[in-house]
């Protein structure tokens, strides 16, 4: 079974370039109809091999019971796996959702003014400013977070100095707390919010703002009635790109937090890589996926899906 999917994972040969639009209108009607589908083939093959198939196997795992040493067997009691996974780790699931919500709002509040300034007042140097904002993120996620661990350590260069000059009490701590984890995630996920916002703000037609001014609207009104609604698609995309990975993040919680800040990503990692309880790990993954799908659906409904196309 596994081998079969492996075969399909071979990259599909590149398709011949399709006829230019409008060319051969009469002669190749069937080819023209097929071309768009053929074009998606490499993408679909990739998705099937590296996303759908592994996901399918993970899903299968949730119906099994056992360990690596004794082997796995199908269990009719599989709902119990889901139930137990949820009731054992509900604290961590709820905590992850709360942290991710805070992170989404925080990145929005931080990056909106920043990107607004770059898009509206950046002038010719817009791209330079965006590059400067992205520069720290050229280092890997893990290295950045480990660097924070060093910078924020109790006696490190930052807190240590502040303590030495008496601005902080000697037992003040940042690491191993929810604040450290949320701050770390806010920092790490900032570009995921900032870039979609920038795109939305950048393509905003400034003549619309001129028109608003001509119609005697105040700057505040123009912002609320013109700028904000037109950038909502950016807010929506940015929120999804920030919220979804932060719910499942475990690096920040493990490096900057402690067992009181454990997130569900850590639990899934431990179940799969340390305890090697695959059924529980897989069940938790699917609970998380289901939860995120529902949340995204509700969010899309609330914000109005017609906004999404911009």
């Amino acid at each position, binding site marked *: 079974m596994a081998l079969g999917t492996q075969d399909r994972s071979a990259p599909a040969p590149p398709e011949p370039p399709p006829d230019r639009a409008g060319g051969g209108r009469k002669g190749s009607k069937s080819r023209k109809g097929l071309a768009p589908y053929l074009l998606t083939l490499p993408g679909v093959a990739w998705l099937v091999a590296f996303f759908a198939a592994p*996901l399918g196997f993970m899903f299968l795992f949730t119906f099994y019971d056992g360990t*690596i040493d004794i*082997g*796995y067997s199908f269990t009719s009691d599989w709902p119990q796996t889901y139930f137990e996974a949820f009731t054992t780790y509900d604290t961590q699931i709820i905590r992850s959702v709360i942290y991710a919500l805070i992170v989404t709002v925080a990145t929005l509040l931080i990056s909106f003014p920043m990107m607004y300034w770059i898009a509206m007042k950046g002038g010719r140097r817009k791209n330079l400013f965006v590059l400067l904002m992205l520069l720290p993120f050229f280092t890997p996620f893990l290295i950045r977070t480990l660097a924070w661990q060093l910078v924020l*350590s109790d006696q*490190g260069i930052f807190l240590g100095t502040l303590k030495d000059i008496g601005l902080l009490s000697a037992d003040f701590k940042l690491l191993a707390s929810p604040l450290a984890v949320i701050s770390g995630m806010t920092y790490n996920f900032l570009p995921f919010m900032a870039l979609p916002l920038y795109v939305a703000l950048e393509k905003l037609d400034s003549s619309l703002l001129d028109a608003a001014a001509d119609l005697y609207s105040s700057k505040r009104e123009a912002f609320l009635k013109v700028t904000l609604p037109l950038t909502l698609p950016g807010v929506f995309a940015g929120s999804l790109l920030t919220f979804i990975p932060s719910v499942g993040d475990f690096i920040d919680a493990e490096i900057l937090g402690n067992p009181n800040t454990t997130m569900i990503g850590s639990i899934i990692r431990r179940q799969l*890589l340390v*305890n090697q309880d*695959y059924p529980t*790990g897989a069940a938790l993954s699917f609970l998380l996926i289901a939860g995120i799908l529902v949340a995204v659906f509700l969010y899309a409904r609330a914000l109005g899906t017609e906004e999404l196309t911009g």
Partner: protein
Amino acid sequence: MTELERIMSAVSPRGVSRREMLRRIGIGAGGASMAGLLAACGVEGEAEPPAAEGKDPLSTAKVAGELNFANWPAYIDKAKGASPTLEQFEKATDIEVEYKEVINDNLSFYATIREPLASSQPVQWDLIVVTDWLIAKMADLGYLEELDHSKLPNFSKNAGAIYKDPTYDPDNAHSVPWQSGITGIAYNRELTGREITKTEDLFDPAFEGQVGMMTEMRDTMNLVILSMGINPEDATLEDARAAQEKLLKQREDGILRQYYGNDYVQPLAQGDLALCMAWSGDVLGKTLGSDSKVDFVVPEEGGMLWTDCMAIPQDAEHPVDALEMMNFVYRTDVAAQMTAWINYISPVPKAKPILAGAKDSYTRQVADSPLVFPSKDMESRLHSYKNLDPEEEEEWNDLFNEVIEG
């Protein structure tokens, strides 16, 4: 960090075969590798009974000239970025050693090799060093090669009596000790402001957010049980529950900073931890013969004594090279050289006179330390882990996981 090492080693192709790379990528991408997937399709993961191996390749195989050695950090002598012991070994035997410090705690490491072992695939390592209880567990499952003791003359000649025929591995059939060590407490005098003497101090609210404990279930649970006045070897499930209560309270009251593997050394050194559970050799190297602010103590209530052992994973590709290494480190001069640097308890008692005769005072101090060559008095204060049967192990693990998973 384990995670860092894992990711680093997954990205770096050095010393990793193509198949191994694919296997790791499989784990990284889907969380389940091929063996697991096959198992999901109904193919049983098999744990072969040890006796089923009739054609043991170990007696006929020859030295291959290559050895992949997995060990813990700071567990071998080092000088100028290399290890004299490994260099001497390479010179004496013509075997090239790939020595990797990839083990941060027993279970995390075991998890990286368990799947190929369960599906009878060779693992990446020819020689591993894990703690006694894991040796027993792996030997039971048939995951370790049987040792050919005719190739280990130095072991039978030089190993201390208590290291031969141990309870966790009768007749040393699958393992020989690498080093023993003590689980006790390390503390930073400047941050605690007082001497630390008891395990109970790890639960003192005065050290809020500055206490480190261990991800090793056996170390943490047994030390806490010991601090409640119970000999861990007689501990019941009730005692384990009481220990769990105590650990949960420590966590919920914010006294605990974090659970650590071997990576507690860094936060201890940089002052994030005022005191933490520690392994003797890690700390001794920094305290002996210097006025370091960090100290190691065996708590009044007692400490834990354990033995890390060398073993050859089943179907390893270069088993005879691994035997050569096992034999080599039991040479008295090599054992002394390693002990002078790593400061754990050597299984070779004859290393002591060699160290005591050294020219520099640091090495003589190592020879005199009761933590490196335990005195009778010290021995009486040390205890072994409780021996857990598989069912108990699961119960204890469940209790402990609840604490460290938050």
